[in-house]
């Protein structure tokens, strides 16, 4: 269940006060009280309970925390939550159009074995979504470069590349069909 975040709980005594942020995440508006140094990943996971965004390295290396901010993929572990105010954040929970459907990328990952343990998957999908947003029909090299900021310790990557390729082709076909 996606609820609005509750009012700030017990305030710690801090040299810099918490600040109330208005965030738009997956189209929902939230008010959260955060310290200025809180990362977007922390807010998503700990305050909004959107735990599909994972934190692997917390240093920008692994891509597990990838979300879209105004449509662009960013590492939410290195992104200050305060910088997201006034912008549109999309997490893996908001990739599909409705809560009970899957995005074509998600379907393709399932169909083509693009995931095993799943830890990298949310980030992989968000990076894939960003790639397809600017390069709708990527070749293999473009897919690999588009996902080079996402580490996977399970799949060996080939099946992820196949999944993205399949999803891109399906989206292009759908597009062609409805145009």
């Amino acid at each position: 269940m996606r609820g609005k975040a509750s009012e700030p709980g017990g305030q710690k005594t801090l040299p810099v006060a918490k600040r109330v942020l208005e965030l738009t995440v997956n189209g929902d508006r939230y008010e959260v009280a955060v310290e200025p140094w809180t990362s977007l990943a922390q807010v998503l996971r700990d305050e909004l309970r959107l735990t599909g965004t994972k934190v692997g390295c917390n240093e920008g290396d692994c891509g597990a925390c990838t979300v879209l901010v105004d449509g662009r993929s960013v590492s939410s572990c290195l992104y200050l939550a305060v910088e997201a105010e006034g912008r549109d954040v999309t997490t893996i929970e908001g990739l599909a159009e409705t809560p009970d459907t899957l995005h074509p990328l998600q379907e393709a990952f399932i169909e083509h074995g693009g995931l095993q343990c799943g830890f990298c998957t949310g980030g992989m999908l968000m990076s894939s979504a960003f790639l397809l947003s600017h390069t709708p029909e990527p070749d293999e090299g473009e897919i690999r470069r588009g996902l080079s900021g996402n580490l996977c310790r399970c799949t060996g990557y080939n099946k992820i590349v196949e999944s993205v390729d399949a999803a891109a082709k399906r989206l292009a076909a759908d597009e062609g069909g409805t145009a």
Partner: protein
Amino acid sequence: MTAPLSFDVHRPRALTEALDLLDEYGATARVIAGGTDLLPKLRNGRLSPEHLVSLGRVGELDGIEETGDGALVIGAATRLFDVQRHPLVRKRLPALHHACSVMATVQIRNMGTVAGNLANGSPCADTSAPLLVYGATLEVARRDGHREIPVGAFHKGPGSVDLASGELIVAIRVPPVPAGSGSAYQRISARSRVDMAAAGVAGLVTLDGDGRVAEARIGLSAVSPTPTRCPEAESLLTGQVPDAPLLERAAREAAEEAKPIDDVRATAAYRRHVVFVMANRVLTTCVARASAGAGGGTP
């Protein structure tokens, strides 16, 4: 290592407002653009400012403009990803385009900026060698004035740059490349793309009407305390016909001019050798591009 954090973040909407904040908070303030270099340094305690002045909402600093004289002016808040994809950068500044395409990750390039890459002061900064050979200048402002610094004079030593408190890089100005020139960049790192470069080489070669080298510029990163040009190698090339043996000699000279060190990324001897290999390839590409009459194309 995580250090306890405590700072305030200011998000001005205008350049003048940002400069006022930097003036007011002086040495206790720092600029934050993408934060991709800054946040790790705050977390490990290497920097502890009390105020961050964010460029995230300063719209006037975001974007690339061409001026009347054909220079490209890259606003300080322009993301690396947008520099990489800009049609004029691709066409005219292939060395910078290549640097912005291969450094870090897509996500980091969607956050980080060229100005942050330079201001961070790392001798490994991938945009530094291309900007050196393009003769770029930094436009720096403070509340009551502004100045211009050539990229070559900006780095003072590892982690140290020519910026005073209260100052902000507004833009990077890249003058038009001379007619008849070609440019290129190559870098090498341990973990293909994502890792910081162990060595980077940029080149720009201008040919005259007779196919001789009118001017050559070679820029190195990650192999000396600051990004640096190679005057000896450059003068070897000037006035000569750039055939393969000459380019190889110049590349060897460039490797001699490097001052590499042993560190976690590579040994000094390895670095010197790859500077030779990459300089040879970069110069060959520059000459081919100059002869083809195009500065451009992807590397």
